[in-house]
Each structure stands twice: as structure tokens, then as C-alpha cells.
């Protein structure tokens, strides 16, 4: 909770930089943004460099 106001401010600033007038959503989405980014970081940490992506469409067509 301690860094929540900072995250909300970060959300607000990022959206403004893209020209988006969405100040009203910065506060409500901040916790979700925090959680999503932390989860993606955890996913990235699990992936090795050899876990290269294979396009789903190409694989599906082969089968």
C-alpha cells in the first residue's frame, strides 16, 4: 500500500504523455497495474533465453 500513491501518479503521467485524458482512472487501476507488472516480472524471471516463442498460427497449420 505504501507505494500506491506513487503508482497512481505514474499511471496518470504515463497516460497524459500519450495524450489520454484519463486522470479519473489512475487511482482505481493503480493496484491492478502494480499486480500485473509484478506478475509479468515473475513470469519473465522463470523464462530462460532458450524458451523462444513459436508462433501459434504456424504450429497450428502444420498439425
Amino acid at each position, binding site marked *: 500500500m505504501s507505494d500506491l500513491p506513487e503508482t497512481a501518479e505514474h499511471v496518470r503521467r504515463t497516460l497524459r504523455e500519450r495524450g*489520454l485524458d484519463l486522470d479519473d482512472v489512475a487511482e482505481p*487501476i493503480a493496484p491492478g*497495474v502494480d499486480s500485473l507488472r509484478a506478475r*509479468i516480472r515473475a513470469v519473465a524471471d522463470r523464462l530462460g533465453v532458450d*524458451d523462444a516463442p513459436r508462433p*501459434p*498460427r504456424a504450429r*497450428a497449420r502444420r498439425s
Partner: protein
Amino acid sequence: MSAAFLPAAELADRYARRSLSPVEVTRELLERIDRLDPQLRAWITLTPERAMDQARAAEAAIGRGEAPSPLCGVPVGIKDLIDVAGVRCTSGSRVRADHVPKRDAFVVERLARAGAVCLGKQNLHEFAYGVTSTNEAFGVCRNPWSMDRVPGGSSGGAGVALAAGMTPLAIGTDTGGSIRIPAAACGVVGLKPTFGLVSRRGVFPLAWSLDHVGPMARTVADAAALLAAIAVHDPEDPWCAEAPTEGFAGATDLRGRRFGLLGAPLFADAEPVVASAVEEAAGTLESLGALRVDLDTASLQHAYTAFHAMLATEASAIHERTLRERPREYSALTRQALARGFMVSAVDYVHARREQARVQRSLERMLEEAEVLIAPSLPRTAPPIGEPMSREPAEAWNRWMPPFNLSGHPALSLPCGFDREGLPIGLQIVGRAFEDGRVLGWGAAYERETDWNQRRPAGFEREQTRAVDL
């Protein structure tokens, strides 16, 4: 008798025997919609003139012995983010309330060619970006099994219309469960086909990497017939595969065939009534001679995170311009969801795509051990309208569906029971890529052994209309 709850296959049979007429059935269903929809809000735009014209043409074709397909004269509803030429296509949002496409979507073209009757455009969660179909702009969609519950979404109008006997067939879309969620919550059948099997031309996107178009119906056989009509290669859709498009009525003899029951840690916290319904379904499959394999799902645990990152960023890219120009025309919740996508970096998106590949490989390995995988569709039955919906992986209502949007494997939801309040429970059956017919075969075998799809929401079965027997 009323045609309200007759399956498409029976309508076709009765048309051929001249005991029912497409014109009378279409008229009956349009009248039924007029009467029921002010409460249920399953439809955004009806197309009665087009429907009656198509019904008359179908009737004439049948009379000449020239019905082009088993769907000739059979009514169908279209999710209102799929284009029908000359009919407004709102995507469930004020942002596109006045959008009128000039050309039919590929699937709509295919249905017209099959002789199906388009009743109109069905309600959905705004821009398909949500799972409740609580639509601020076009009406709150209500679940016929309990009017204070959500029908699921985003193809909620389709689920409601099927459950309430307003149409025997519907076309939905599924990016993170949007066909299977309303199918499960409304006690009907919905198939997310293999990624690339059905063209998405003329369908407003939610997330290009995850979107699928597919059939919804009250029986597996009807879903298979609808899939057969729309699963044709579309050279104008670069994502549409050149795959076999016949044989969707898969084999129903399950003797000696393997299914995998997806278990812990991912599929571990269903409500007890849901868990026991799925366990019973597994028992039914075994009683038909199928062999059960229990599968660990540790490798799928991060699928929802990868899905969420991809969905959020792709949806935000699609909406960036209109969000900048007309942000207040979006509902507050959609605005929030779209804003979230701008907070995911390109590097994070690439990690999500890599996790997608990992999830796909993992599911392919499981599908080497078993011909199909089964799991609950949803961890709980339909929640009350207005209950906040979480997007956290451990809490999201749809959390057991996105792994198959990531992987592209075909995934079917069909009814497998009811809770104590009489709300439907859904069973998910997942198969190998482009083996949609095999998945439907397993579903048909299960459906034949049970009577879940014969039950109707209280009050709606008694809601009969005038006789249409000719």
C-alpha cells in the same frame, strides 16, 4: 406446439416433412423476443424484415427441394460486434452506436449462403471487454435461470437468447472465454474453435492474438452444424488457416479412448458443487468406456498473467485513438480496463508471448497423453448482477478459459449440472488443434448420456406461443 426450444436439427427435419414452416417459426421467435426481451435485454437490434425475407426465401428453396444446407430456414442471432451489411453494429458501446457497415462479415456471408435466417444483433459486454454483459448503453443482460444473476459474457445476449428459447443458434466471439462463459452460465453449448479455423473478417477485434469466432447452440449437434457452415477458409483473412472443414460431427464411441482431467494446482478451487459435477461427468465418460488420466497443471499457472498482459496491450492499441478523442463515451469500467494496457511495456508483452508459447507446448504434451482434456468451465455459477469482477489470476471468474485462447486449442463448454439454486454448471472439453470435430464428438457422447440440456429456466418453458404446426 411451440418451436421455441426445438433444436436446429429438428427444425430442419420438420421443414423437410412440411410439418413446420421457416416463415411461421421466424414469426413466432420474433414475437417471443418482443415479449421477453424488455426484461432479458438479449438483443440490441432486431432485423425482422431481413429475417422474414430470408425465411420466405428458405421456405421457397425447401419447397423446390433445393435447401442449400441443414441450416436452411433456421434462425440465428449474431453478436453485435459482427458486421451485417446495412445494420448498425454497436460493439455494445456508445462509441460505435451509429456505425453501419457496408459489407457482411465472412461468417454472416456464410450463414446467408447456407439459407439461415438472421434474427438480429445480440447484446454483449461493451467491446467484448468483460465477462458480465452488464451493458450500460444497451441494457443490462439478465440470466433466464435467475433474473438477478449475470448471464456471463461477453457473448451474453447469445447465452440468454438460447436459454430463453428466442433462437436455436447464435454466433459469438471468445477472447478469454466469451463464448464459453455465457454457455456455462446459461446452461447452453458454446465452442471456441481452433485459432484460425473461422474467419474474423468483419468482426470488431478485442485482441488480435486471442480472438476467436464460434458457434453457440442448445445441443452439441447444432453447434457442429453451425460450425460446418462458417468454418471455411477465407482468403481475405490472413489469420484464417487452410484446414479441413468437414467432419465436425465427431465419433461418439468413447471405448478405449483417453481423456485427461485437469487438476491441481490450477484447477483446484472450484465451488464444491462445481467440482462434484465435473467429477460425475468424468465418471459418465468412464462409464462409456473412456480411460481417465489425471493431469497436473503446474505448467499452466502463469497462463492467466500472459493472457492478461496480451489482452490489455492489444485492446489498448485498438482503442487508442477513440480513447483519446472520445473517452467519456466509454463506460468507466471499460475506460479503466483500456487504460491498464498502456502500463504494460513492450518488453513485458514479449515475455507474455514467450509464456504463451510455453503454455501451448505444455498443453500439446498433455494432449499427447490424452485425446481431450476436461475441466470445469467456471469455478462458480453465475454471480449476482453488480458484483465486482476481479482480474487477478486467483480470483477471475473466467480464469480457467484463457489458457486455451493462448494456445489456440478448441474448447467446448456444455452443461453438466445445476447448483442448489438451479443455476447451470459448465463442463469444458479441450482438444488438439484442428480436431474440433473430435471435441464435439466427446461432447455429443456425454450429452446423450445426460439430460442437462433438456432442462429449461422456470417460467420460460411455460411461455408458449401459438401453435405453428401446419
